[in-house]
């Protein structure tokens, strides 16, 4: 879950990282007031959950409060990689002597956090690592032993930095590791970290990602920073359909019927589980189908939950038929899902036999499930029909139905 720059900086401030004077503006007047309070030239930065702000023109400099107000008005409407800003960070502009990079992330192969440091900041770190490998250091951190600053010192020193810079950079890198560990982050990054003309260090830009699983543990912090529980912070904001999907899942603790993602096709999908859904979504597209949605059934959802998910998918304009498919199930019960989807069709005023293009969930309690489907005239298949073939049957039915 990505934080906005101003939220990342609020987190950094808690750990004593050095920041310039700043304020968050939601209007031109606010930008003017903040710039006047700072009393010096400022930089205005659009608050979006994406890189590439500079390129998009969403970062501007202003020497006076009036210029700051004007810059605000220019920046706010700019869409950066599909993200629209609601606020702009107004920050003191600093005279820079040198830029550095400090980042902490997980190394999935070593299964440890890794502290990445470079004395060539301000540009893409991957590029630096490729072109100037001796200017980038990677230092792994234990999650069991207490973290002490010597690792940060070694990380900084490995790029050839020495003298007073080494001693000033060490606590900053150490503090970033501590932020990373304390708040269950998956990324904590300062780029650039600037050494100013007067020798001070300031975090110019930074961003953090928090692990979704840890949101509950850090609920209080998120509340203080102003991140609401319903904010998904995915690459794009959730649609109304997706919000209703999340509600279906949350309304009943039994099993999973969620992770609904909206697409613009005409074949509704009631699919599962985690890996099965990925496989089936690919299969539908490979068979020439256009999915209306992605979703995941998992565990043992109640009949009601499967029913509500079915109703939701059927409520989407343009959805004529649904395909109900999963991998061979061992935990989820075939009969329970069968009841749920049949009920969902009936409660939506549709004939299950017409609406369910194919039902392919083999596995636990399948005989019981198949009896239900037979009774309602729904076409189903057992494990002898592959996921790919089942997807093909669903797609064929939709095209045969003379869709527009």
């Amino acid at each position, binding site marked *: 879950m990505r934080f906005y720059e101003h939220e990342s900086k609020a987190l950094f401030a808690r750990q004593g990282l050095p920041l310039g004077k700043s304020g968050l503006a939601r209007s031109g007047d606010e930008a003017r007031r903040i710039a006047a309070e700072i009393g010096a030239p400022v930089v205005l930065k659009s608050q979006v959950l994406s890189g590439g702000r500079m390129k998009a023109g969403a970062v501007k400099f202003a020497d006076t409060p009036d210029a700051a107000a004007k810059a605000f008005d220019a920046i706010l409407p700019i869409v950066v990689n599909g993200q629209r800003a609601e606020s702009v960070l107004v920050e003191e502009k600093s005279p820079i002597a040198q830029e550095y990079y400090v980042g902490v992330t*997980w190394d*999935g192969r070593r299964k440890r956090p890794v502290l990445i440091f470079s004395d060539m900041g301000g540009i893409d770190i991957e590029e630096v690592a490729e072109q100037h490998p001796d200017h980038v250091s990677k230092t792994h951190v*234990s999650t069991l032993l207490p973290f002490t600053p010597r690792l940060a010192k070694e990380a900084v020193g490995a790029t050839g930095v020495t003298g007073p810079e080494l001693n000033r950079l060490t606590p900053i890198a150490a503090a970033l590791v501590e932020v990373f560990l304390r708040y269950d982050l998956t990324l904590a990054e300062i780029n650039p970290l600037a050494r100013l003309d007067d020798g001070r260090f300031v975090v110019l830009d930074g961003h953090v990602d928090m692990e979704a*699983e840890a949101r509950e543990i850090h609920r209080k912090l998120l509340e203080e920073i102003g991140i609401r529980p319903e904010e998904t912070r995915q690459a794009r904001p959730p649609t109304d359909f997706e919000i209703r999907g999340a509600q279906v899942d949350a309304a009943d603790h039994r099993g999973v019927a969620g992770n609904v*993602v909206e697409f613009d096709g005409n074949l509704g999908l009631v699919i*599962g589980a985690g*890996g099965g859904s*990925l496989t089936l979504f690919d299969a539908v597209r490979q068979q020439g189908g256009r999915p209306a949605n992605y979703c995941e059934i998992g565990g043992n959802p109640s009949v009601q939950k499967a029913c509500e998910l079915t109703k939701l998918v059927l409520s989407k304009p343009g959805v004529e038929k649904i395909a109900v498919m999963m991998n061979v199930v*061992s935990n989820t019960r075939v009969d329970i899902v069968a009841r749920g989807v049949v009920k969902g069709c009936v409660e939506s005023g549709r004939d299950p036999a017409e609406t369910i293009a194919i039902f392919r969930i083999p596995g636990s309690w399948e005989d019981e499930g198949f009896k239900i489907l037979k009774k309602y005239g729904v076409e189903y298949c057992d494990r002898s029909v*592959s996921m790919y073939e089942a997807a093909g049957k669903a797609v064929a039915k939709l095209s045969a139905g003379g869709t527009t």
Partner: protein
Amino acid sequence: MSILITKDTTFIVQGITGREAVSLTRENLAYGAKIVGGVTPGRAGRDVYGVPVHDCVRDITAKTRVDGSVVCVPPRFTRDAVFEAIENGVRLIVVVTERIPRREVAQMVELANLRGARIIGPNCLGIISPGEAKMGGIGGPAEDTRKAYAKGPVGVMSRSGGMTTEIANTLTAAGLGQSTAVSIGGDAIIGSTYAELMPLYEADPETKAIAIYSEPGGRMEAELAEWVAEHRSRLPIVAFMAGRFMDEMPGMRFGHAGTIVEGKADTTTDKIERLRNAGISVAERIEEIPDLIRQRLAEAV
């Protein structure tokens, strides 16, 4: 033979009185597993399908040999449960629980490495050596498990628990049994990756080929590709890559916690290329896996 577990493997279930653990215990017993005890603090003296419940792991390890543990406790207690198993000498730990923060998983893995223990999972369904035993919910009820899994020459590793069974079922239907199938877990950090399990399969004379299920996100496939290239593995590998549509949707999380495209190396396109360059066959569909394995086995002779 098989890897990790045989019919003689003794194990315990931590959190045995929970809803999922109860059915897992019944299913494993019915498949022939030797479950020598269960743990739920405060519930000592009860039993679950004849398996005695204890308060602490050491109450069992003091009296009996315990080779493994299935950890099936809520996320906020999981790290402690895994530590308890490791510190009481348990060497194979299957972590079923999902939604554990990465930092805690990393701590479990670090301790396991220090003590010479192995973790499978988290967020997995466990291990099965068909015809021998299973450890975890993999395959479901014993009768369903017997339909999908059969003893044979193929080692299976999968980031998805459900797809482990789908692949095994496809292999079984085609007359190819499995030596051991491992649901390795769907999280970004897991106890045992493909490459870390490969040496075990490599050393198992019964395993003749490997089938893997894979997804976007992480560097596990790259690690496998490097391992294969470096070790000149005797085992032909056939991989299936799901979630190809995700390449077009960076930043969106689908499926498991570890499944997200954040950079080029996370995409299926990149992974498929790396796997193929290492001589690993990549199946376009699940049903192609058995034929690809047969082809590769025939080439090897």
